[in-house]
């Protein structure tokens, strides 16, 4: 058997079937210690499952906490069988785990808030790995613009917006205190922003309107475009408060006249 065929066979046994092929193993391999060749190969199959499960558990720690070991491990095994790792970085595994969980929630296998909790954890993980940008004086940037002129904002790379029908950040905060079985969670709309400040991740609750304006601004819309959809409900003090928030949090890196 040439190297290509051997590697494709090995990979197929570990990733796709997670099973042994006794004939193939006995024919080609000598096992370690007191193991037989099937047990020797199991070291690699178990290692694969364990590493990917650990990686999911590291990122989706709160999901693990509310699901409990048994259900979390069952879901991970199923997910791992269907989703091989395609990255050189083990920490990148499970990018679409929140989506996978949303399918389970649709089928009533897990509570509805869990996919959102996973989405929150994924966003938190992404923010953690972003650079801490140097702070820009937002008020000074704004003051450079001609009075009444329209503008666009550029946000730092660690800036994230998160919206959910559930208060998942509260569950996330208590992720180290296992609560099994987890009580039913009612719907309470939540809008958050996550960003880095002084090398720490900050989580800030926002009102629905502020959240919507920031969403539009991050998508590249100008200030006037962003607020126009809310002209009926917006009060000048709200805009002022939003600007103060932006200034205090320091997540805007540039203010560009349009």
């Amino acid at each position, binding site marked *: 058997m040439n*190297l290509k065929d*051997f*590697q494709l066979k090995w*990979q197929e046994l570990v990733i796709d079937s997670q099973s042994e092929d006794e004939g193939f193993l006995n024919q080609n391999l000598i096992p370690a210690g007191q*193991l037989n060749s099937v047990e020797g190969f199991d070291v*690699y199959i178990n290692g694969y499952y364990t590493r990917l499960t650990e990686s999911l558990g590291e990122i989706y720690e709160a999901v693990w906490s509310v699901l409990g070991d048994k259900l979390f491990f069952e879901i991970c095994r199923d997910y791992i069988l269907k989703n091989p790792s395609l990255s050189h970085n083990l*920490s990148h595994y499970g990018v679409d785990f929140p989506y996978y969980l949303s399918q389970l929630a649709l089928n009533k296998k897990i509570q509805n808030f869990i996919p959102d909790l996973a989405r929150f954890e994924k966003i938190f993980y992404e923010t953690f790995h972003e*650079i*801490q940008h140097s702070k820009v004086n937002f008020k000074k940037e704004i003051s450079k613009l001609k009075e009444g002129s329209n503008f666009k904002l550029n946000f730092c790379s660690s800036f994230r917006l998160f919206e959910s029908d559930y208060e998942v950040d509260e569950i996330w905060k208590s992720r180290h205190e296992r609560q099994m079985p987890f009580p039913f969670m009612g719907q309470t709309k939540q809008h958050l922003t996550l960003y*880095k400040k002084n090398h720490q991740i900050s989580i800030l609750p926002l009102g629905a309107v502020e959240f919507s304006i920031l969403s539009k601004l991050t998508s590249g819309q100008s200030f006037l475009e962003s607020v126009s959809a809310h002209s009926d409900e917006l009060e000048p003090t709200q805009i002022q408060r939003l600007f103060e928030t932006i200034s205090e949090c320091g997540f805007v890196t540039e203010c560009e006249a349009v």
Partner: protein
Amino acid sequence: MEIKNQIGVGLRSTHYPHIEKSLSSQKRLNVDWFEAVSENYMDTRGRPFEILSKVREHYPVALHGVSLSIASFHEPSQNYLKRLKSLVDVIDPFIVSDHLCWTGVNHKNMHDLLPFPLNSESFEIVSRNVETVQAYLKRPLLLENVSAYLLFKENTYTEAQFLSELSKKTGCKVLLDLNNIYVNASNFNQSAQKYIEELDAKNIGQIHLGGPSDTGKFLFDTHSCEPPQAVLDLLTTQAEKYDTIPVLIEWDMDVPSFAVMESQVERTKSAISKGLCNTL
């Protein structure tokens, strides 16, 4: 007895607070250098990268990869090489290494250091891949011998022969993991001493020490304890030949306090010193 080997430890997130504190108080740690796992720093500009950059300002750093997959039948991933080179360019490590193994093919990754048949076909493929990587990185690569739980009946090289020939052909160096030699020797009833004697010390660019777990049926390379005395004894016997080679202590599971790592540095120095005295 003065020893010339520089002794380092693996950079692990558990130790970040201790390392940061020592850096800010300008207190020198009792280690000569650090080794960082390349993949843990390639795709981040967050806290891990900030720590590595700070460490690099004060200590030499080696970058040690786990996903190059040098023995895959196809060429190494260009995306991986690009990311590795970016990190190398920023950190300026004194060593760039990975493992003599494969981790996956056709874009899939099993995140494991997998064995492959040591024969002439593999030799040609690995040589080609090493040359590709070295040309891309514009520097020599070090490759580490790995622990294995299965060996191939069709091997026509010993691992030591394979590494020696590879070094001769491509100019790459060997990262000699004494723990992995010890684990494989125990698991496959081979002689660790014979393995070491097959390798020319001039081809060795770095040494790893670590501690395995005994499952009762086989030794498992877990890096979960201090290097066993038998592993240090291998270093002692070669102390004179390996007298300038940097040595690294790996500890990845149940990672102890940094003070314990520093005591392991002293233990390693004693083992080398003992070997040097024995040769006088």
